[in-house]
């Protein structure tokens, strides 16, 4: 095993994990800076292909990229090292911070803190909702988006259907849709 290389992989993805504020998608430029610019493990084209393919699969993008790039550069050990480096430090910080928070939650001011932060989280969630609306409208159009939203809301909250089932059905429908002939083989 090439130990210096494994060390570089872990270092690169630890930096990405610690500097990547704002969730997975905001980390993509950081991954690019380390992998393409600093260490030159991949070309620009390879990187954008990996990104495009990562986006066609479910699950968080940052760990998919870390795992795949780690695997390409350093085999299975590289894959595990890169995923741990990008996730572990902040999981530990999270458990420590929230553990402290829960222990003192009977203190009045700590309890106040947990109430004061809820409107902030609400606004962040509202912004994400709006982002998804804007993206859905630009790819599907407003009418299709509203119809899909109303039907799925009725199924989930009216009839209690599990959201996973609705999404699963939509994914299968997308795979079964007829493909226009000219755009397939390019």
């Amino acid at each position, binding site marked *: 095993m090439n130990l210096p290389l494994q060390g570089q992989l872990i270092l690169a993805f630890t930096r990405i994990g610690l500097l990547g504020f704002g969730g997975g998608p905001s980390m993509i430029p950081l991954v690019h800076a380390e992998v393409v610019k600093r260490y030159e493990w991949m070309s620009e084209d390879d990187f954008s292909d990996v990104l495009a393919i990562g986006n066609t699969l479910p699950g968080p993008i940052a760990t998919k990229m870390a795992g795949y790039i780690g695997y390409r550069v350093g085999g299975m050990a590289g894959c595990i090292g890169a995923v741990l480096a990008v996730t572990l430090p902040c999981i530990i910080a999270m458990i420590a911070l929230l553990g402290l*928070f829960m222990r003192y939650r009977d203190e009045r001011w700590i309890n106040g803190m947990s109430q004061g932060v809820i409107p902030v989280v609400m606004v962040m969630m509202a912004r994400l909702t709006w982002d998804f609306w804007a993206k859905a409208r630009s790819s599907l159009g407003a009418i299709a988006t509203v119809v899909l939203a109303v039907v799925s809301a009725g199924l989930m909250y009216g009839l209690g259907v599990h959201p996973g089932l609705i999404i699963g059905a939509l994914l299968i429908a997308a795979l079964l849709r007829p493909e226009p002939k000219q755009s397939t083989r390019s």
Partner: protein
Amino acid sequence: MLYWHLFLAFFIPNIVGYGGGPAIIPLVENEIVGHYGWMSSQQFAEVLAIGNALPSPIATKMAGYIGYHVAGGPGAVIAVLATVGPSLLLMLAALGVLYRYRNSIKVKSMSSWVRPVIMVLMGYLTWTFLDESLINSGWLPTLLIGAVAAVLLNATRIHPALVVCLGLASGALFLG
């Protein structure tokens, strides 16, 4: 059995969660708060707040902490594996096939057709937090903190982690 439920609670959202980490949030909430009842929506909001204030992907931080909260160290490992593992294995196994079809309209439709459903779940979660805040803090603090946060997040370049800290601080000073 608990470990198996914990695995499922993170495996399902991550396998259907198209649209990156944030898309997984309302799906995980549905399992953790709605289905299994391991946390209240207030606790889930706190996890999101602290999670948004720290770097690195939100999905794995959420999984690590909630897994730990429900079943200790092994719980954290199981929840993180369920979050990271399946899509990473798919990516390693199917890269060649996916590469050929990456411009296919079918593959593109997958993420765009799922988006409105995720949007509904996110809207519902926004509503849950509003309701929670109105019950706990009343409408005036909710409106004030919410409006200030909305302006700071939308109209300035202030870091979201700082906005979370401001919310925590105003709560400590005025809502305790």
